[in-house]
């Protein structure tokens, strides 16, 4: 009993509750005639889709910039890469790689500016990041109308210009990762091997980075900026690098998301995209200034698991669709918990 209590304390109550809740959903699923294999398949797909976006939180948290509510900025870089790749009429892997290749420089550029801005407002990063994200999305709304994209599958038919709200990538590079080495167990369960491998590769890269000299310095900046400065580390530079990494990961993440989802969502699409990722990493056990890859993996799985399972299971049980409300309460409750917990540790 004592051990169990210690374990729960170590893992954290919210994570335990959510894990138990998810487990209950999986157990309950067969009883309300929800196919377990389909559920598992969906969870895996969503896990792969969102993984990289959640991973994009790690560098900024580690360098002490707080939760990256400015993720939409990275997403915009990814969108630019995606639509440009479509404009070039590239298909298959070439299209996917081109999208990433185009998105990365944008990500670096946006991240650089965004990082410089955050360096000027140390202490108030999160609120400002939120609004920088929002306003950049709104700014891009204008740009999507004005940028000279001409591919007829992407622009409004009647005007011949201005990008559509939703653009299909099926005929270009939809599913190139997901179907790569895809394993089909049944009609309902297939494993998106390629996408999971790609996510794994990204995790490996991030892991490796934090074992290099720069990565070590970045961790020190996040853990104790005074220590880092006394050891001769340029704090602002480290923070900027971390923001650039986060932004680039966000850009790559949205492209992975789109190839699996099959559509590019422009305009207000990226608006609230930061919140699920923030919630996921916090559910995984990260705090406002410490995040690990384990947090990413566990958090993404738990959060996406709940998102997959609540609509099907709860709806079958209660005959009402409460999944949206549950998503709002769980994800924001989680963020709220993290924010108040940090303050309590600090005040000691």
């Amino acid at each position: 009993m004592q051990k169990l209590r210690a374990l729960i304390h170590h893992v954290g109550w919210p994570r335990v509750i959510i894990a138990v809740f998810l487990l209950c959903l999986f157990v309950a699923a067969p009883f309300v005639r929800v196919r377990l294999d389909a559920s598992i398949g969906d969870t895996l797909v969503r896990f792969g889709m969102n993984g990289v976006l959640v991973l994009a939180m790690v560098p900024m948290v580690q360098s002490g910039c707080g939760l990256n509510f400015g993720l939409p900025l990275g997403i915009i870089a990814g969108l630019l890469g995606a639509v440009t790749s479509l404009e070039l009429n590239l298909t298959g892997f070439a299209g996917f790689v081109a999208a990433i290749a185009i998105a990365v420089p944008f990500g670096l550029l946006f991240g650089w500016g965004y990082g410089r801005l955050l360096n000027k407002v140390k202490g108030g990063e999160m609120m400002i990041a939120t609004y920088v994200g929002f306003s950049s999305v709104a700014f891009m709304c204008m740009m999507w109308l004005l940028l000279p994209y001409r591919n007829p599958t992407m622009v409004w038919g009647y005007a011949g210009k201005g990008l559509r709200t939703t653009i299909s990538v099926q005929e270009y590079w939809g599913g190139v990762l997901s179907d790569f080495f895809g394993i089909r167990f049944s009609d309902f369960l297939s494993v998106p091997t390629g996408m999971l491998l790609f996510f794994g590769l990204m995790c490996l890269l991030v892991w490796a980075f934090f074992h290099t000299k720069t990565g070590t310095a970045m961790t020190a900046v996040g853990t104790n900026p005074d220590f880092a400065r006394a050891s001769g580390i340029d704090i602002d530079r480290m923070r900027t690098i971390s923001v650039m990494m986060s932004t680039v990961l966000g850009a790559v993440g949205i492209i992975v998301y789109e190839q699996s989802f099959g559509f590019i969502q422009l305009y207000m699409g990226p608006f609230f995209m930061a919140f699920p990722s923030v919630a996921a990493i916090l559910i995984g056990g990260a705090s406002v200034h410490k995040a690990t890859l384990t947090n990413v993996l566990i958090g993404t799985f738990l959060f996406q698991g709940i998102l997959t399972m609540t609509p099907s299971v709860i709806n079958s049980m209660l005959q009402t669709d409460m999944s949206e409300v549950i998503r709002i309460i769980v994800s924001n409750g989680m963020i709220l918990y993290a924010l108040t917990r940090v303050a309590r540790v600090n005040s000691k």
Partner: protein
Amino acid sequence: MAESLKSVIIGDRGILTPSHPSYTEVKGMTMEPLLRIEGVGKAYFGNRVLKDVSFSLARGEILGLVGENGAGKSTLMNILFGMPVIRETGGFEGKIYLDGEEIAFSNPFEALDAGIGMVHQEFSLIPGFSAAENIVLNRESMRNNLLVEVFGDRLRTLDRGDIFLRGRSAIEKLGVSIDADMLVSEMPVGHKQFTEIAREIEKAGTKLLVLDEPTAVLTESEAAILLESMRRLAAEGISIIFISHRLQEVIDACDRFIVLRDGEVVKESGTEQADVREIATAMVGRKMGVEEAREEEGRAFGEAVLTAEQLWVDMPGETVRDVSFSVRRGEIFGIGGLAGQGKLGIANGIMGLFPAGGTVLFEGKPITLDDPRSALRAGIAFVSEDRRGVGLLLEEPIKLNIAFTALQMQDRFLKKSLGGFLTWRDEAAIDELAREYIESLAIKCVDADQRAQELSGGNQQKICLAKAFAVRPKLLFVSEPTRGIDVGAKKLVLDTIRRHNREYGTTIIMTSSELEELRSICDRVAVIQEGRVAGILPPTADRAEFGMLFLGASKVSEKEVAS
């Protein structure tokens, strides 16, 4: 006026001024001192900080309380005010009587209610409020209105006119001229200090006022006005405990003084025949438990390796104003002085952690101040006084803490792979390094992967030293190496520093508040007072010499000492 207020001694303890209204009562032997402290003692976790302190204070008397930092003054005041920290750590011994009644406050508000006022060193004022508003803070004059009946007392309206009048009369009582409508944020420092005192005396029934180093931030003329105000208050029957490092002020303003050292009253007398030198000696005196003997050896040093000229450092609470000194190769150079005088600022400024200016030459080449990399690259390392704040990555393993600076600044403990494209941490080399230091410094830990925060203070300090040694510095700054660690560990740490100096010939500049510690291992000791070098003495110099320098009572130039 001042002369007439000089004390006369009645009996062996009670002191009153002849002009005092209750003087006649005293003659009738009905007098009970306002405050009587009997046998008060206090230990924190077995560490004794106060021992059998007894004294009493009569109405209208001004008592000077002097002592080095750590002598127990603040603990005594914490006990008097019933600070929660005292109760949380097991209460105190002895008894305190106010007006003949035993008191033991459970929080400072009770002390305030009982008529004890305290003026702290740091200003406790609301910047956007006027002097008057601050003086009556949370005791505002108010008028009732209808809504009070519904929403409670806090919706009473303020009576601004009366607040202004009360503020002004409190200021007038002090005999200074401050506009009661002036905002605190626009005031010069001295006025803030007076505003704060005015707040305490404005409280109805303030009988006892504790002033904690009120003159530290004041100019000389302001300090003179303050002392004058104190006498006026005393004449009105308010007793004052005056804590100060400026001994001359204590002698000028007080009727009587007591000296605390290591938690004990070592001297108590009237100020009439007092002499600064005598008080200084009493204050600094010999400490218990620190070894006195030092190996006398013929020590020869090389050329000057570090020279600082007109150094100023803007470190909050430890401002360095104008410091020049030079340190020779192979030497252990000590920097001492009372807290807040600026001794800690020197190392922090040279290491680029706080804004600084002046010239610092190391091996003939200038160090760029404001840039930590410059000093680190030149081969200077720093063990900070703020161990947990600056010294360690508490949440990271021991080995990373030790290797960090060497890894970042000197590109050691790295290995390349993929043809030099990737530079990794060389975990094996880091392990090796950590093992080496854990062994040589006898760091008590489970293994090198343990997190730094799980270790005791002494072992954490050793990690800080190991981190500095790992960069193989030519010059090492060590600040307060024994602060907050137990006696056994103290000796180990000091021995480690000395051994490093002897074995590698590393030049060491050690800053410490503990004079005996400096005297035991340093070759020369500079004393910093009010941001300037008060003097540089050999460790064998008389304690009284140091005491005088600590207190700024005399300026001894380095030349005099050297000759």
